[in-house]
């Protein structure tokens, strides 16, 4: 089940599923230590003897409040004759999750209502050794294990505290947990449990006929009792509304800080642009890691999650964020990369497969040996793209004091690696794993990224006056470009090839599969967008990878089996992916010479906006028949590709819409400085 309406700050991330159950609590890193291990935290309502857990069976709408990282959830239950309006948020500074509930009685009688909150913690991702207890001093339930504490309390009828609670054993000898106890409307009050435990608490309110009551609920998160106790007192001292308001204001200011004039775009696109920025933000850790996606359900499919920093994904997100003006965040990402390069095997200038949010090496399925030969199991595009994104960052912001710290670490080491990790005969980069992490070989996408990385290294060398390295990198990039035309463009197929695999004989095995990633040569600057090779390639992608159902979109490649739902590959070559579809829009934008030619790109942006969840969340892919999100959701790469495409569109619009009288741009979308006429 995809994740929706994530809320968080730099250290704490909360996600929900489509039943509005809280499903993930990541702390102290965004993406590391999921203290639910993906288990459901149920939320239920009892009214006058009838009980129900909130789920999609209700009339449920999951959205965000306008331009902020606060949820706007409405839930209506006809049987109970009540409606809920909820706002969830994590304070932007303190590690506190707050839920505000407006409970409305839709009947003509005064009624007794009880709200139930169930907590199925698996602290440190394991049910072993947890404790849950009622703390009378804090008027709260506390779950703890080792140095992880979760204090849960709330306010009803204007006073802090909870009305009833239960702690108990779960997942042991058939015991389901305290949530079952809630369904009769009463909790039996066991004050402490240890081992594999859960808890449920309830708030009771009387609601007048057609009346409404407000209930607040919160979870304070910290490393020890003193910290969660401090947060509990802080909430009561300032009042909950103070935290809600300041967080709402902060995110609204954050997402609008550049004051872009996006008025030429349809409202749905502007709305998704801002939501994408906010959703991206929830997936970035204070240590700088940009996480690919935090959706623990994906482990049921792939035995692992996407809660890692992939250098490729991170670089592409950093690029989009820099385009959007968020250089404060991307600096953290580049520092994170520098730390990786400064130690271990990576110190010769490459990145390995993926990393945990704390900078430790992530899990991998790429072997270090194959058929008896040692193999360097990298995805070399990741190294190239980090350098490429870093140059874009520096070129835009010229933050010299920042970049100079990365010069020896990232720029020189990665530049040297890209320049030298090549075949002496062909000039091509040596084989590595492709961007989809499936195939070993030499890939058009990877080679384009290597080229982009080398050009970035050359630009830095020029800037710093290092003529020797500038020459080395320039020669290497020229060799790579020539080799791409020679070995990776196929006159027979009239397009770039996805992959060639070198053979011991000196020739290559060709993978003829058409793959959307062969868009890369134009995007990473190897060839112009109107180069015949690029035009042929993009036309082939369009013709062969467009999904021929009512849903549409571009598939990753023909015969893609990842989350496959349809066997007819002529109709559905693979499920539509947001990033692949946006790559086509990026080419339309790069090609456009007038506003008319930009329209095809706008159509794709509208397509993406129409395929997002109502909250704005973009999954990795969607079902080709139903448009349901598939695989991880949200995927930061999808959101980054959307942000980048919108800004590329606006850049192009600004460039090609020129006032015939003054020669200035008709659509100037970037903020004018204060005090400037």
């Amino acid at each position, binding site marked *: 089940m995809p994740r929706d309406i994530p809320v968080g700050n730099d250290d704490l991330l909360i996600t929900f599923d489509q039943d509005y159950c809280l499903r993930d609590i990541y702390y102290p890193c965004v993406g590391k230590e999921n203290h639910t291990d993906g288990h459901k935290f149920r939320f239920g309502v009892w009214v006058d003897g009838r009980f129900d857990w909130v789920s999609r069976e209700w009339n449920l709408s999951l959205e965000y409040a306008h331009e902020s990282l606060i949820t706007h959830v409405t839930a209506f239950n006809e049987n109970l004759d009540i409606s809920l309006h909820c706002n969830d948020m994590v304070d932007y500074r303190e590690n506190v999750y707050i839920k505000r509930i407006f409970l409305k009685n839709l009947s003509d009688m005064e009624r007794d209502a009880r709200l139930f909150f169930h907590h199925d913690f698996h602290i440190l991702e394991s049910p072993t050794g947890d404790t849950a207890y009622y703390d009378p001093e804090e008027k709260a339930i506390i779950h703890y294990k080792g140095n992880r504490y979760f204090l849960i309390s709330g306010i009803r009828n204007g006073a802090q505290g909870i009305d009833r609670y239960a702690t108990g054993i779960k997942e042991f000898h058939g015991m389901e947990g305290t949530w079952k106890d809630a369904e009769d409307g009463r909790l039996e009050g066991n004050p402490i449990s240890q081992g594999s435990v859960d808890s449920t608490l309830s708030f009771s309110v009387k609601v007048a006929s057609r009346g409404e009551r407000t209930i607040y609920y919160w979870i304070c998160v910290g490393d020890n009792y003193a910290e969660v106790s401090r947060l509990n007192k802080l909430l009561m001292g300032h009042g909950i509304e103070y935290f809600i308001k300041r967080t709402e204001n902060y995110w609204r200011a954050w997402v609008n800080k550049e004051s872009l004039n996006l008025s030429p775009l349809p409202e749905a696109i502007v709305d998704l642009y801002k939501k994408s920025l906010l959703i991206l933000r929830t997936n970035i850790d204070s240590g700088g890691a940009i996480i690919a996606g935090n959706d623990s359900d994906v482990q049921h499919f792939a035995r692992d999650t996407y809660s890692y920093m992939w250098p490729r994904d991170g670089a592409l997100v950093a690029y989009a964020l820099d385009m959007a003006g968020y250089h404060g965040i991307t600096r953290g990402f580049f520092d994170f990369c520098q730390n990786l390069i400064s130690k271990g095997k990576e110190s010769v200038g490459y990145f390995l497969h993926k990393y945990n949010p704390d900078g430790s090496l992530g899990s991998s399925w790429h072997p270090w040996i194959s058929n008896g030969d040692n193999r*360097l199991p990298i995805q070399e595009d990741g190294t190239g793209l980090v350098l490429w994104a870093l140059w874009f960052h520096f070129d835009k912001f010229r933050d010299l004091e920042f970049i100079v710290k990365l010069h020896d670490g990232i720029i020189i080491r990665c530049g040297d*690696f890209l320049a*030298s990790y090549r075949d002496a005969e062909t000039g091509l980069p040596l084989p590595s794993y492709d961007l989809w992490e499936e195939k070993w070989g030499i890939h058009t996408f990877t080679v384009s990224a290597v080229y982009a990385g080398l050009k970035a290294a050359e630009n830095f060398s020029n800037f710093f006056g290092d003529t020797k390295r500038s020459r080395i990198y320039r020669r290497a990039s020229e060799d790579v470009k020539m080799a791409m035309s020679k070995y990776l463009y196929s006159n027979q197929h009239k397009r770039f090839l996805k992959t060639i695999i070198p053979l011991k004989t000196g020739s290559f095995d060709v993978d003829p599969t058409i793959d959307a990633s062969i868009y890369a040569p134009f995007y990473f600057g190897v060839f112009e967008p109107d180069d015949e090779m690029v035009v042929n390639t993009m036309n082939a992608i369009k013709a062969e990878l467009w999904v021929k159902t009512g849903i549409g979109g571009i598939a990753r490649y023909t015969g893609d089996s990842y989350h496959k739902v349809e066997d007819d590959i002529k109709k559905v070559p693979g499920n539509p992916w947001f990033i692949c579809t946006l790559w086509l829009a990026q080419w339309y934008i790069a090609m456009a010479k007038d506003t008319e030619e930009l329209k095809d790109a706008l159509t794709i942006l509208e397509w993406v906006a129409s395929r997002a969840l109502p909250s704005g969340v973009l999954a990795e892919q969607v079902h080709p028949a139903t448009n349901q999100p598939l695989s991880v959701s949200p995927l930061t790469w999808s959101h980054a590709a959307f942000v980048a495409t919108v800004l590329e569109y606006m850049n192009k619009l600004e460039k090609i819409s020129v006032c015939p009288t003054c020669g200035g741009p008709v659509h100037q979308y970037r903020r004018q400085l204060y005090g400037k006429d």
Partner: protein
Amino acid sequence: MAKIDDTYENENICIKFCGGCPSYPGIKGEMLFCARGKSSSPRQKSGCNCGLCDIWDKYDLTGFYYCIEGEAK
């Protein structure tokens, strides 16, 4: 580019960089490949520290993987 001096001093510089390199062949007596030529048993390319080495700067070298490709020309 000057010819690299095959000296004890350069050996000492070299081993600090080649010694920790993932492509270093590790054959007894083999080092200073930029001066002496490639290894008798080269490994496959797995990253190269040559560009970080003081000899690389001192002699204005521009290549990499001397243990595999042979001495600097």
